[in-house]
């Protein structure tokens, strides 16, 4: 069974049909790309998937569970984590605490236990520290764990956002333009990291990207979106050679 099945998803803002009749199937372990010109509705689909917007039509099945119209918090608990096009870190928290906040639902002790510093507090905090540092090491951020997230350089902030999303233990990871603002070297490094995450965390990844080098380099399948509708979808190489896609991007 497919991990993510979206059928006939649609939403309107006023008179504008931002996303219409959007259907997609993503198998477990796939690295799937969502591309399209600016304003095609890619981020809107992410917002529909994570419950920021409620769809007017359609259903979203995650691992067989219907998550259509659920709240953001519940969707995250069901197994979808995301990053943002404009980075949204907890700026005044340290790098380590950003990841530990991501571990919030995986490790638990009560507020009173925390205030009274009962033995469970020390035990669970230690486990959280260890798990968070493990995750930071994957992204080469463990050296910077004690500095504030806002003081990280741009490329590392993007990586920290991925680490924080992974900390919630998702089944599906949504990356919204992970390579935006990165130089070619950083992009190559990011491609390796994304592959590493897929292989080592058994992760299914859906990503929005404009960088064609990244898209053609790591995505196995693509869906092209234009004016809120699916233009074409299929294997990466086929899609990128489709004359319709080239027309949508470059004009006639």
């Amino acid at each position, binding site marked *: 069974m497919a991990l993510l099945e979206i059928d006939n998803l649609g939403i309107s803002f006023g008179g504008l049909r931002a996303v219409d009749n959007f259907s997609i199937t993503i198998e477990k372990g796939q690295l799937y790309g969502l591309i399209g010109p600016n304003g095609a509705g890619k981020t809107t689909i992410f917002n529909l998937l*994570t419950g*920021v917007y409620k769809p007017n039509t359609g259903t979203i099945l995650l691992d067989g569970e219907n998550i259509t119209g659920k709240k*953001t*918090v519940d969707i*995250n*608990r069901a197994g979808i*984590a*995301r990053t*943002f096009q404009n980075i*949204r*870190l*907890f*700026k*005044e*928290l340290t790098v*380590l*605490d950003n990841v*530990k*906040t*991501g571990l*919030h*639902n995986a*490790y*638990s*002790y009560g*507020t009173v236990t*925390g*205030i*009274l*510093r009962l033995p469970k*507090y020390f035990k*669970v*905090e*230690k486990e*959280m*520290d*260890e798990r968070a*540092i493990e995750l930071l090491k994957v992204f080469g951020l463990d050296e910077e*764990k*004690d500095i504030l997230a806002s003081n990280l350089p741009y490329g590392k902030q993007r990586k920290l956002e991925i680490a*924080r*999303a992974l*900390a*919630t233990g998702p089944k599906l990871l949504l990356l919204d333009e992970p390579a935006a603002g990165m130089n070619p070297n950083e992009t190559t490094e990011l491609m390796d990291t994304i592959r590493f995450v897929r292989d080592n965390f058994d992760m299914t990844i859906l990503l929005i990207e404009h960088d064609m080098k990244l898209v053609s380099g790591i995505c196995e399948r693509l869906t092209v979106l234009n004016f809120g509708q699916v233009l074409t979808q299929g294997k990466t190489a086929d899609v990128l050679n489709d004359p319709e896609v080239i027309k949508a991007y470059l004009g006639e």
Partner: protein
Amino acid sequence: MEKSMKINFRLNKTLKSNIITYGIVIAAYIIVQLLVNAGQVSNLMKGLLVPICIYTIMAISLNLTVGILGELSLGHAGFMCVGAFSSALFSISMLDAIPNAGIRFFFAILIGAFFAALAGIVVGIPVLRLRGDYLAIVTLAFGEIIKNVISVVYIGKDASGLHFSTKNAMALNMAKEGTVIINGAQGITGTPKNSTFTIGVILILITLVIVLNLIHSRSGRAIMSVRDNRIAAESIGINITKYKLMAFTISAALAGVAGVLYSHNLSALTATQKNFGYNQSIMILVFVVLGGIGNIRGSMIAAVLLTLLPELLRGLNTYRMLIYAIILIVMMIFNWSPKLIDLRKRYFHKNRAEKERA
């Protein structure tokens, strides 16, 4: 091996900062006690010791809402008012039932904190679900309403129990031997004077333990994540309303404790513009802003200095308010000017680098 050492180092860093904060309070307490015993403290100053504790607790409490939760409360004195009156009512009606002053005061503190927390929940549940600055508006109204409501309430006690009215003392319909406890605008008289400097300092320390331990815990991280980025916090599965409400309720409860200290420091307690009004709430906000939003230690120091200052400057008489204003401005610049922040950072970094080399 190296990894575990690094974790310890980090824990030690927050621990060290917390110990400094506790240390400052304890050291200040010892110094003041020594001076009082040596007879070096004027009566005027002695009278200020409990108010200093009250305002310190208020500043820490408000900093939890403003600095840690990132919401603005403009009616924090209202929660203090709830704590003050509920605990005073308790203490007077239990005067005979619990003759031991210490035990009675202990319960009075719990009662004050409980009712202030209840008020916090009532205000918080509808407001904290909204996005935006609604809390500021609603708490502003709450502060004014609670003060005005209390000045028209009459509560009396006789053999058959408590009587309640909003008209006048006669409308209570009490038996002959009944006594009026809350007498409308005249407030409560005869509250036992249980507040002492020592109890005040103990309550400051308890407040600090609660707030500092909360900040450095799982719930504290959740609260600060909501402050830093609501959308991201939601996306990683944090129940925003729950943690907002938690922080705000704890903050209100602590303000209630300050109110208990306040009411048990005066024999006559009234709800007026001066003690529980808008100006009082703003003054507490000034402590927080000057001491540093989110900086618990800073807001404590600001509260102490700004409570002492008007009295210390009394000798200068006509220039008093002028100097007060200048000191406010200087503190503001020192804490918030980007250039000075930069300078301080560089100075500290230099010191640290030198230490590490040594």
